[in-house]
Structures are given as structure tokens and as C-alpha cells.
């Protein structure tokens, strides 16, 4: 049978993908611009089909702690929110990181700081890639740039979350969450049985079977030596992830004189800018980090020796540009272009910035 092509919003695609990829539970609190995720799940009633639990929590604080509980009990659990709501979840995320609990957090970003605006933004880059809560930890951060990727990254997130016992954030934004595009939903995959969960998550608090030691999900350790050891264990895991899980997409970087680095919806705008610049004979390439953490430092470092300049384009005041500069280490000029108030920049603005900054007169 041919794949069914559907037209839907990114938020709706996440909900359908969750049901299809064996998600056990969704816990969330309404906030614009992502409420369609919970609304779609409520309308689909997956508890009657796959057995997936869907619960509207009393707050984002409760939602993330429901992820702690469900993930700590070995289940595939997820939540979604938007920027101010994700700010509320940071305590729980730090606890999940410390206790090594898998889970998926979808952040459909809006402008900030504070209550900000309901319009799209990429202003949570720092919060997502620097841990966000207390202590030395990272989340794996995936940045979808299409409705298709919002659907595809649900299963990928769960795979990574359980492989490394780490919370994974899908860092989307109000553009990708709200835009309607063609999408092919992932194939149905059954939820794991209780026996499969107990076998594949021997660390989970599922009820102690006679003969095995108790499982305790905790981030607490008062002995400094043991706490240090646990942190070394976490850092070794992060090194492993840095080594294995960097994901990028490159467009026309082979012969590029200039490079644009952009993620998520900004990468879509940058793509149009590059197409237009190429028509003018200006050789510009695009590097789109798909994982924002781990960040593609090595590849950007490599490309920085080949190009005359790099423009980092983000819908924020300049956050990822700090990582680009860390990768480039001064080898080539780096600049940033962005907007912050919920205004989505146009390809023309990107083109003008590139030409102006690098004095391209063509």
C-alpha cells in the first residue's frame, strides 16, 4: 500500500506520531502555541486503542514530575509545552537528568522573556542546550524544521532517551508547530508489554520481584565521594552521546564561499535565501544542526577553514552563534542575524545581512 500523505499541523503530527510509536503516556498542561497536541490526543482517545494514558495535569510542574514517575517506572512518556511552561519544568528536568530517567519533552517555542508573546521564537536555545536546571547535565536536543520531522522525531527521541537513560527535548517553535504541511505518519508500533519493560529496564521501579535488589529512582546522594562518582558517570555518558549522536543536514556546502548556520524554522527561511543567492551566483551553503546538543562543533570547525564568513541566523538575539563561535575559534568572521519579538524574519533580510556584513557587491 502506498504511504498515506496527510496535511496537518506540526502539533497534530506529534500527537499522531506518539500514538503510533508505542508511547505509554502523555501528561501536559495547555499553553499556546502547542495546545493542539493535548487536544488531538484527547480527541483520538488512544486509551481505547493502544492503551496510551493521556492526562491533563494541574501544571507544567506536575506534568514533568509525571514524566519522572512514568519514565522512572520504565514507560515511554512525554509532555509538551511552550517556553514559559518549559521554564517551569526545569526543576523536574534536572531531577530526571540526575536520576537518569528517559522521557520526551516537546517545546513549541514562543517569544520571551517572561510571558512574552504567543508568536514564534527560538529564544530557548540556551535553556535547552545548557541544561536549564541546576547541576552539571545536558538534555539531548532535537530541532525539527518541518511537520514531517516533528512526526519522525517522536520515535527517535524515545529511542535515544531509553538508549542513554536521558530526557530528550524536541525544540520546535510556533512556526513548525502551527504550520500545516504534508506528512507521512510513522508506521504503527505496539506499546511494549509489561514483561518487555521489566526485561529491558532492569533499573525501573516496577515492583521488586523476589530475589532482585530494590530499584530506587533518585538524584540524591549525600556522600560527596558517591556524588562525584555519579557525576563522572553522567559526564562519561554525555561524552558517549557527543561521539555518537551529532546530527546535521548540509545543503550546498561543498563549494560554498559563505556558510549560513540555522536550525528549525530559521533553516527553512535560510534555505530560500540560499536558493536566491545561488541564482545571483553567490555560493552560499547551509548547515542545519538537527541535534542542538550534542552540537556539531567538529563539522563547523572544518567548514570554517573553507569559507570566507559565517552567518548564524536564529529567531532570537543570538544564542546558537555562541556555539558557532566556539567551533570556529576565530578562523573566519562570524555574525548573527535575528528578530526577537515574535516577528519571523524574511529570506530577503537574511540575504541583505549576508551581503552587507561580508561586503558582497555582486
Amino acid at each position, binding site marked *: 500500500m502506498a504511504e498515506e500523505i496527510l496535511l496537518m499541523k506540526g502539533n497534530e503530527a506529534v500527537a499522531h506520531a506518539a500514538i503510533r510509536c508505542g508511547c505509554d503516556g502523555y501528561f501536559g498542561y495547555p499553553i499556546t502555541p502547542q495546545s493542539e497536541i493535548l487536544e488531538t490526543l484527547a480527541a483520538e482517545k488512544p486509551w481505547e486503542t493502544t492503551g496510551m494514558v493521556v492526562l491533563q495535569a494541574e501544571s507544567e510542574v506536575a506534568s514533568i514530575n509525571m514524566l519522572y*514517575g512514568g519514565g522512572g517506572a520504565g514507560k515511554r512518556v512525554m509532555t509538551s509545552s511552550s517556553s514559559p511552561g518549559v521554564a517551569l519544568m526545569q526543576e523536574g528536568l534536572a531531577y530526571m537528568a540526575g536520576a537518569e530517567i528517559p522521557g520526551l519533552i516537546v517545546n513549541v517555542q514562543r517569544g520571551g522573556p517572561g510571558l512574552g508573546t504567543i508568536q514564534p521564537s527560538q529564544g530557548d536555545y540556551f535553556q535547552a542546550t545548557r541544561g536549564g536546571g541546576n547541576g552539571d547535565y545536558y538534555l539531548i536536543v532535537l530541532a525539527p524544521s518541518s511537520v514531517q520531522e516533528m512526526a519522525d522525531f517522536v520515535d527517535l527521541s524515545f529511542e535515544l532517551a531509553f538508549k542513554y537513560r536521558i530526557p530528550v527535548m524536541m525544540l520546535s517553535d510556533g512556526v513548525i508547530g502551527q504550520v500545516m504541511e504534508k506528512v507521512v505518519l510513522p508506521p504503527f508500533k505496539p506499546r511494549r508489554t509489561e514483561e518487555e519493560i521489566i526485561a529491558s529496564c532492569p533499573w525501573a521501579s516496577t515492583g521488586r520481584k523476589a530475589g532482585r535488589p530494590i530499584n530506587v529512582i533518585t538524584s540524591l546522594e549525600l556522600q560527596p565521594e558517591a556524588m562525584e562518582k555519579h557525576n563522572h558517570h553522567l559526564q562519561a555518558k554525555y561524552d558517549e552521546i557527543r561521539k555518537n549522536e551529532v546530527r546535521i543536514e548540509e545543503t550546498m556546502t561543498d563549494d560554498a564561499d559563505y556558510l549560513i548556520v540555522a536550525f528549525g524554522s530559521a533553516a527553512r527561511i535560510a534555505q530560500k535565501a540560499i536558493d536566491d543567492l545561488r541564482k545571483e551566483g553567490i555560493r552560499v551553503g547551509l548547515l542545519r544542526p538537527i541535534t542542538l546538543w550534542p552540537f556539531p562543533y567538529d563539522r563547523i570547525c572544518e567548514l570554517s577553514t573553507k569559507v570566507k564568513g559565517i552567518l548564524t541566523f536564529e529567531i532570537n538575539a543570538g544564542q546558537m552563534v555562541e556555539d558557532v563561535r566556539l567551533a570556529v575559534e576565530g578562523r573566519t568572521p562570524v555574525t548573527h542575524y535575528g528578530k526577537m519579538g515574535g516577528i519571523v524574519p524574511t529570506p530577503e533580510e537574511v540575504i541583505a545581512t549576508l551581503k552587507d556584513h561580508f561586503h558582497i557587491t555582486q
Partner: protein
Amino acid sequence: MERNDIIAPENLVYKKPTLLNDTDMHYCPGCSHGVVHKLIAEVIEEMGIEEKAVGVSPVGCAVFAYKYIDIDWQEAAHGRAPAIATAIKRLWPDRLVFTYQGDGDLACIGTAETIHALNRGENIAIIFINNAIYGMTGGQMAPTTLMGMKTATCPYGRQADLHGYPLKITEIAATLEGTCFVSRQSVHSVAAIRKAKRAIRQAFENSVNRRGSSLVEIVSTCSSGWKKTPIEANQWMEEHMFEYYHLGDLKSI
């Protein structure tokens, strides 16, 4: 009769539950936590549900409850235990899922999680230790601190104009449609311990049988925080705490 004749197995009339391990407890002399821990272990063992029990420990003196009772546990962020228990129970519906929380955890920072889990009728049991003080952090005012009671953060006594009033969250819980069993007990005497055990058993059976939310408050002593001997603390609790926090079942359906 020699000593060995007396301690012969056939003469054994009492032993601690095997789920309660031999780890030295960190609780102070006279503290109620140790007795309540023992009751929980006894009830789980008597119900024969060791393999299906998952506890959620709080931030507070009972943060290390998982070191003493040999079942699976999750250690919660301060106040969030009912949210964590909600997810575990919904995702593993045949498990006994209970939280073990103090007054600061349950009735202050976690009030929203407590009220909403109970109001949704989550099939969990909440064991609520109310000693009217923050024990672990060193004796600060709790939401349940009595009027006039002195703590490190109300050193001249709790006053309504400065601190508001002691919160009867158990009475609030009894008004919620989602609760099926709400009880207030204590463990200061053998008779009280027997009643408290019955209440814990009822709450745990409700969780297993998915009858709705249960809350069992244990009015407790904190001899260190109250700066009293264990005996004085028990007397003070009987004279002052029981006057405000009346013992008995508030709701049982």
C-alpha cells in the same frame, strides 16, 4: 528456665517485618517516622504485595525511606510525590502506589499536587506525617505549626497577622469527590498504633482495588524540632496537637 529456652522459636510472639531491613535509621529518638515505617512494611507484607508495591518518598526527614523498606521506590522533588505517584499508578494500574510525605512537602510546597491528585481520584494512598514543623532543615515553621508555637522562623510564636493559620489540609481532602478514605491517626500509644495500622491497610487496599484516593494523616512528634524529650513530646502532642487536629476517620466510603 535458661535464656535459650525462653527465646525458643515457639515462644516468639513478635518480630519486625522482613521488609524492614537492618539499616540503622537516621531518625531521632522519639520520632514517629520509625513506627510508621514499620506499619507500612507490616501492612505490605501482610497483604502479600511486596512485588507490586512502589513507594514515593518526599523531601524532608523521610527522604531516605527507601533505605529502610525493601520495596521499589522513587524519590520525589519537594512536594511533587502525588504527581509522580499519579503517573506510576496510571501506567501500572495493578500496583500499590503510595506516597510518604511530611507537612511541608504535602501541605505547603506540594499543595497543588496533593489537592489535584486527590481531586482526580487517583488510585494512590498518601501517608501524611504531620509534626507541625520542618524537621530536616532544622525546626522551621510549617503550614501546620500551631498558633503560638515557637519555631526557628517564628521564634516568638506563630501569630495570625504574621504567619496565617495552621492548615487543616486533611479536612480539605475529605471534601473532595475523588477521595474515598480520609483518616487522621497517631502512633503515640499501642492502641493508637493499632488504629493507625488499620487505616494504612484500608488506604493500601483502596489503592490496589482502585477505589479512589486515600489520605492517612499521622499526627506525629518531632522531639528534636520541638526541643523536648520523647516523653515530653508525646505529652505535648496529646495536649496541644490533638486539640486542633482531631483523630479519627473523616471520610470512609
